[in-house]
C-alpha cells in the first residue's frame, strides 16, 4: 500500500512523536509513505477566521503539489485539522467551479494548477479500512491485555464530513484497540470537543471542556488521540485542571500509532514516548 503523506506543521514541532510513531507503525504494516514535496501550512483555524479565500487557497496549494507529483492519488493525513482543511477543498471544488477558478488564479502565482483528482484520507480511516488488522493481532499477541483504553476521536476527523465513522458515536478505534489485546473503555466523550484553539485564546473555556473529558475517562488506563490539537489539550493542563476541580485527573494520553506501535513490540524510544507531556509511566508499568 502506498500513499502520499501530508504531515502538517504540528507534526514537525509540538507533535513530533505523532509523525515518528505514524511512520514506525505504517512501516511495520507495509505501508509506504511519500511526503508531498514543499508542502506548506493548511491554514489551521486561523485562515478561516481571517479570509474566506485564503482558507481554501492554503490547503489547495498542497493538493496541487500532490497532483503535480503524479504518483499516488491518495493523501494520508494524521492531523484532524489538516485533514478537514484539505478535505474541505477536495469536496467543495467538485461543486463550486467558480471557487475552483478563483483558487487557480491565485495558485497561478506559483505556476500551480488544481484539478481535483486526489483523495484525502485520515490516518484513522486508513488504519481501520485499508490496513490488515489481523497483522496487528498476529504481531502484538495480546500484548496490551488487561488494559482498558479510552478512544478519543475529537471533532474534525468525524465532522462535518462523515467519511469513515459515525459522527456522533464513533467506534472505528475499538477494533484496533482489541487487536492490540486491550479493552475499549465505554464512554460517551469520544466525539466531544476538546476546546481546540480556545485553550490558547480563551483558556477557561478550553479547560472546562478538557476537564469534562478527563473526568469521564476515570477508570481507563489511558486515552488515545488522533489529532495534535486534542493531544496537546488533553495532556498539557492535567495538573492545573486537577487542582481546579479538586480531584486527581491525571491520565496517560498517547497518539493511537504510539499505542499500536508499543503493542507491536516497538520500544518506547521508537515511538518517542519521552515526548508526551502526560505521565505515561502509569501505563507502561502495566504492559507486560
Amino acid at each position: 500500500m502506498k500513499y502520499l503523506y501530508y504531515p502538517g506543521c504540528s507534526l514537525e514541532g509540538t507533535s513530533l512523536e505523532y509523525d515518528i510513531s505514524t511512520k514506525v507503525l505504517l512501516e511495520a504494516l507495509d505501508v509506504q509513505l511519500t511526503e508531498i514535496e514543499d508542502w506548506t501550512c493548511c491554514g489551521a483555524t486561523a485562515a478561516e477566521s481571517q479570509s474566506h479565500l485564503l482558507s481554501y487557497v492554503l490547503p489547495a496549494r498542497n493538493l496541487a503539489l500532490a497532483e503535480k507529483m503524479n504518483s499516488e492519488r491518495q493523501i494520508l493525513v494524521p492531523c484532524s485539522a489538516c485533514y478537514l482543511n484539505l478535505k474541505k477543498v477536495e469536496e467543495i471544488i467538485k461543486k463550486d467551479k467558480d471557487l475552483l477558478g478563483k483558487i487557480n488564479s491565485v495558485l497561478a502565482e506559483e505556476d500551480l494548477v488544481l484539478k481535483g483528482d486526489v483523495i484525502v484520507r485520515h490516518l484513522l480511516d486508513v488504519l481501520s479500512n485499508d490496513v490488515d488488522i489481523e497483522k496487528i493481532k498476529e504481531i502484538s499477541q495480546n500484548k496490551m491485555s488487561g488494559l482498558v483504553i479510552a478512544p478519543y476521536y475529537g471533532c474534525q476527523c468525524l465532522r462535518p464530513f462523515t467519511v469513515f465513522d459515525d459522527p456522533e458515536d464513533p467506534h472505528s478505534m475499538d477494533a484496533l484497540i482489541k487487536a492490540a489485546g486491550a479493552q475499549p473503555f465505554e464512554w460517551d466523550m469520544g466525539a466531544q470537543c476538546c476546546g481546540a484553539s480556545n485553550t490558547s485564546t480563551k483558556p477557561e473555556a478550553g479547560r472546562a471542556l478538557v476537564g469534562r473529558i478527563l473526568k469521564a475517562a476515570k477508570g481507563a488506563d489511558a486515552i488515545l488521540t488522533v489529532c495534535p490539537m486534542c493531544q496537546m489539550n488533553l495532556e498539557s493542563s492535567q495538573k492545573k485542571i486537577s487542582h481546579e476541580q479538586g480531584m486527581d485527573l491525571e491520565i496517560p494520553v498517547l497518539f493511537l500509532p504510539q499505542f499500536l506501535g508499543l503493542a507491536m513490540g516497538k520500544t518506547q524510544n521508537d515511538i518517542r514516548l519521552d515526548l508526551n507531556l502526560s505521565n505515561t509511566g502509569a501505563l507502561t508499568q502495566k504492559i507486560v
Partner: protein
Amino acid sequence: MSQVSNEHLLEQTGIVKEMIQTCIQCGTCTASCPNIEFMDITPRHMWRLLLTDHAEALFSSKSFIMCSSCYYCTLRCPRGLELTSAMSLLKQAASKLKLKQFRRSSLFYGAFLDSVKKNGRVKEMEFMTHFFISMKNPVMPFAYASLGLKLLAKGKIRPELPSGGKGKLTALFNKVAELEG
C-alpha cells in the same frame, strides 16, 4: 458596544444572513454547542438577530468567537445550514472591521498567518512572540510560560527570531488580498 454602525455591520454580514435565511429557530445548534456556558447569547439567538438586522446587538456579544469548530451544529441542523462556516464568517467580519472586543483573537490568528506567510509553515515560538508583542501586554506571556517551558524542554519548539526577506507565501497572500479587495 461596537464602534461601527449597524448599517456597516449589516453590509459585512449580508452573506451570513443569506446563508442562514431558512433557519427555523429550533435551537438544535444551541443544544449541541459545547461552549454554550461561555456565551452570553445563544447561537439560535444570534441567527435571529442577524435575520432581523440587529447586527449591532450581535457584535456586542462575544458568543461567536467562542465557537471551537466542533461542527455539531452543522451536523445536526435540520435545515442543513453550514452554521460553523457562518461562525467563521462572523469572526472574519470582526477581524476585518478591527472591532476592539475581538482584538485578542484577531491578533492571535493574524500573528499565526504572518508566520505562515513568511515561512510557509508555522513556527510556534515566532508567532507567539509576535502575538505577545502585538497585544502590548507585558504580563500576558506568563500565562503561557508553563506550557512554553515544557515544550522547549522537550525540544518541541525552538527559539527563533522572526526572519526577514521575501516570504515563502507572500505572492499567494497578496493575490488573495487583491481578489478579496
